């Protein structure tokens, strides 16, 4: 949370996160160039530029795979949620690695020619009508442009400027970008190489991304969409203290019904910052705290405590025959709603 923009709001956890990422990239590249490549069974080693473009290209692929696994892993097991915290830095570093790969490609395969490099990149191979020999570079260019756009708009300034829903939709472009990377590798290096080792690792990585997303989707799908003007949620004592019960509303959105001791309040499940799942957060010092980046909202009005200005929609609640019911219609963001007072719930 911030009431002003700074380039990066550093804290010890971010330093640690980035240090691990840089250690990963350094280990990958150094081992590829200095241990793996010399161990390859070759008559003469491949050109240095080609080895480096392979090192950075495969590194970017594995990093992107890891990034896309974080989301579903966090939904399947909350212990992975801290990996989401600084995922934007993960994305930016991946984009830098991918740009390095493309720089080696441009300055090797598409250099030394009277044709300008970018023109050569797009015009040297135009066999778009065939699968074998398809210009797989086009998929790489698309993925690189997407990664660059996502890295450039990863800052909170763009999040606020574009609004979280638009920003989130824009950043969902990472999925077409990943699909393009898969096509780039399948139609290029994978059709070329004779050794099956990389194909097996590549396939396992891509299937991991698909499998984890499917598993997370199936888990999410367990919640049914409710009907009616008032929707029963749970008995107060069935909601853990400082935690929430997530409800799928008739309009498809989700609400989070929190209990803070004897007080029970409800807000939208989508954090105003990055649409993070507020209902998977916790009430800390009277404020609902998002599990993704720690953004906080008051239980009684969905507003961030001053000087912060973020707001989320609230919901009316009522107690009917000992069961909490939530209104189907959300209130405008920041609308005060007196929390239900249920003293017996806090005795549990």
């Amino acid at each position, binding site marked *: 949370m911030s009431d002003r923009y700074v380039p990066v709001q550093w804290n010890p956890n971010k330093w640690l996160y980035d240090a691990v990422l840089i250690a990963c990239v350094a280990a990958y590249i150094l081992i590829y160039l200095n241990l793996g490549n010399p161990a390859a069974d070759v008559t003469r080693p491949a050109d240095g530029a080609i080895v480096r473009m392979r090192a950075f290209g495969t590194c970017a692929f594995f990093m992107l795979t890891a990034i896309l696994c974080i989301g579903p892993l966090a939904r399947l097991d909350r212990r992975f949620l801290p990996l989401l915290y600084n995922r934007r830095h993960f994305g930016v570093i991946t984009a830098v690695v991918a740009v390095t790969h493309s720089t080696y490609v441009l300055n090797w395969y598409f250099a030394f020619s009277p044709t300008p490099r970018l023109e050569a990149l797009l015009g040297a191979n135009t066999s778009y009508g065939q699968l*074998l020999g398809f210009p797989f570079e086009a998929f790489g260019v698309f993925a690189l442009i997407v990664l660059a756009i996502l890295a450039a708009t990863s800052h909170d300034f763009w999040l606020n400027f574009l609004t979280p829903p638009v920003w989130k939709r824009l950043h969902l472009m990472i999925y077409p970008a990943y699909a393009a990377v898969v096509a780039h590798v399948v139609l290029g290096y994978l059709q070329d190489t004779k050794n099956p080792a990389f194909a097996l690792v590549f396939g396992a990585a891509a299937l991991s991304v698909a499998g984890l997303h499917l598993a997370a989707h199936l888990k999410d799908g367990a919640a049914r969409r409710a009907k009616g003007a008032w929707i029963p949620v749970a008995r107060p004592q069935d909601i853990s203290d400082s935690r929430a019960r997530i409800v799928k509303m008739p309009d498809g959105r989700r609400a989070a019904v929190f209990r803070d001791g004897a007080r029970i309040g409800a807000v939208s499940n989508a954090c105003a910052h990055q649409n993070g799942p507020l209902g998977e957060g916790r009430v800390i010092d009277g404020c609902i705290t998002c599990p993704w980046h720690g953004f906080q909202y008051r239980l009684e009005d969905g507003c961030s405590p001053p000087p912060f200005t973020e707001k989320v929609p609230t919901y009316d609640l009522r107690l009917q025959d000992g069961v909490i019911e939530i209104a189907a219609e959300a209130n405008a963001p920041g609308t005060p709603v007196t929390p239900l007072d249920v003293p017996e719930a806090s005795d549990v």
Partner: protein
Amino acid sequence: MSDPVSDPVREREAPFFIGWATIPEGLRWFLGGIAIGLVVLLAGLSYLTAATQDDPGDGAFMGRADAVGLLQAAPYPILHVTQSDSFAPGTALMLTGNGKRGAQPQADAFDGQLVAVSGARISRGDIIALQLRGGENGISAAPEQTGASLPQPRDLGRWRITGEICDGKCYSGAMRPGRGLAHKACANLCLIGGIPPVFVATDKIDGTEFFMLADQDGGPVTEHVLNHVATLVEIEGSVERHGAMAVFRIDPATLRLAQ
């Protein structure tokens, strides 16, 4: 009532991470394990991926070389060596320009003449290319030698051959690897720049597996083969020997993917 999305008992026990706060005790070992595991996993993947790269062959630049010989400009510049410290007489050199440029602009004026050439030798197996130095440093008229004339083409008949179309320079060793689908755009760029296309056959014919490609009239064929570079194809045409150089005069209409 609504379906619970998560288990309340586990929720109560689970440590809660907040980015700007200290990492909860219960998560430290887990996150430390993830961090170490990720570094180790990527290190392992790196080694595996790098150590299983394919052999790019033995082609390479082999240093400076000079030669005197008879220049044949079509379909692409070839030097039939008559005298050299680097090559045996009778060797056929595929001439190229610098980078992804053909030698045609330098060679055309000397077609059929005795010339002195100088440049960087590139070779892979039986195929030898010479990357000419610029201008007159690369190619110049040599004193006339009595009786020197271009070798007469020897017809080896009509063939249907399976193999891969490559750019002659990268395949010879200017790049390693210098063939294959990942290299296709680079090969096309070389061919567009005037580098001779060569056909690398799966089986030898008349003792060779390398053929310089030409059209049916013996002229350049580059524009007809660009879509088929780097894939395994079958082509029909007639094979000729021009001294030590095998030339495959193809019928582009017969080009198709090999079964």
